[in-house]
């Protein structure tokens, strides 16, 4: 596993830059990871991150767009505005979670 230094701390990440040890994650780190994606975290972003983390703790997988919309109450349009490009991948990365596996 490659290591990476961010904010002066060393974290373990996979080849695509997703954290592999969530215990190393904290809010400051999230802000730094977001910055790498060109995102500056607002309350709207935190609403998404908090939902994803809670859902991950319960289900063990990163929720998809529909789940974040229907269960998490965040409209898909808003999700794209907050995390342009690939919202689920970006949100998972910033939340310190593994790369979302595409469904079978």
């Amino acid at each position, binding site marked *: 596993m490659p290591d990476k230094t961010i904010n002066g701390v060393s974290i373990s990440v996979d080849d695509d830059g997703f954290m592999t040890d969530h215990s190393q994650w904290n809010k400051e780190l999230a802000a730094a990871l977001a910055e790498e994606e060109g995102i500056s975290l607002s309350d709207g972003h935190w609403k998404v991150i908090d939902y994803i983390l809670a859902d991950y703790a319960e289900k063990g997988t990163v929720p998809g*767009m529909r789940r974040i919309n229907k269960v998490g109450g965040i409209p898909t349009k808003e999700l794209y505005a907050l995390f342009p490009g690939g919202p689920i991948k970006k949100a998972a990365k910033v939340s310190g979670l593994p790369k979302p596996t595409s469904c079978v």
Partner: protein
Amino acid sequence: MKNILILGAGTAGTIMANQLRKKMNLEQWKITIVDKEGDHYYQPGFLFMPFGIYSESDVVKPKRRFVGAGVDYLEADVDRIEAEQNQVFLKNGECLPYDVLIVATGTAPVPEETEGMTGADWGKNVHEFYTFEGAKALAKTLDGWQGGRLVMHICEMPIKCPVAPLEFVFLADSWLRKRGLREQTELIYVTPLSGAFTKPVASKILSGLLEEKQIEVVNDFNIGSVDNEEHKIVSWDEREVAYDLLVTVPTNMGDSMVERSGLGDELNFIPTDKHTLQSKAHENIFVIGDATDAPTSKAGSVAHFEAEVLIENIMAFTKGEPLPEKFDGHANCFIESGNGKGFLLDFNYDLEPVPGKFPLPGIGPMSLLTETRLNHMGKMAFRWVYWNMLLPGHPIPMVGHRMTLTGKNIPEGVKIPESLDA
């Protein structure tokens, strides 16, 4: 007398009914199966109908014919399950009590989930082949095809038979060539995934095949809407793909009965223990086939392997014993690749599809993850196996529910899961 109630007489429900009637003590247990439709469709055949390879009569037979003696067959629409009361209400108001419930209501395409999908183009230049009616209509439209932009598109995952859209473009390519229309046709494959398939090794091989056949691929495309006026699909991040003919796989959802019963997730799939197939919410409810949220393919082969596990678990449950069998996610899928050839995939929860021979190491005769004529013949032979062996609940020789490593060549970089060490 106690009641075992099965909801849905598709692939999974029918196999379960036929196995239960052979194994349960029918003096103590009454087995009832309910389905809202009289016809049983061989769904893998829907892929071949648009190209005139199968006709309607190849893929449809009366459901009742496949449910053996000793099982009560009821043609009715299920309204909801009242799990706390151990009862099921039918739309006609009838109430069926149960001691053990098996939910096998599958998944179906719901085009209304996408904005504009069922607009003016629907049934004209927007089609699907995941239903009997849809496959028939598409056959008619393709028959008049003179060329243009033919777009194969997937709305969102998971879908049943996740390789079917790929098979469709491969078959379309060879069909167009035969008709002398390939030069006039742009073939485009649009997927919400980052690659051709969900698992890396297979995805790489299938991507190579798409390239070879000059099929353009648009990745990571999450559809927001269909623009019926300009004939294009638009993604949430505002990318556009124009079509003359759009063949889409609409959002797949579990039956609305699941939602009315308060038992489903956001797609009406039922949270299910992926090894025992017991519902996570109620211990006397079991779920099988496409209706579960188990992280393996939604496929007939999976329903068949699951049935082998579930029968043992239900036998144990009715005797008050612990559930003995563990489902490993085993899936076994043929992929038509056009020109009379095909691939075969064999995988489970822990191991992605890899190359090798199946079912006998070194001999096969089937080859895994390799394009052969024999794999195509296997797929075509499967229709007979489905009607005559699978549905009646007869065992299929040499292919068991537990996946094995025998015959598989594990490529470098693919980790062998501990569960399969030996």
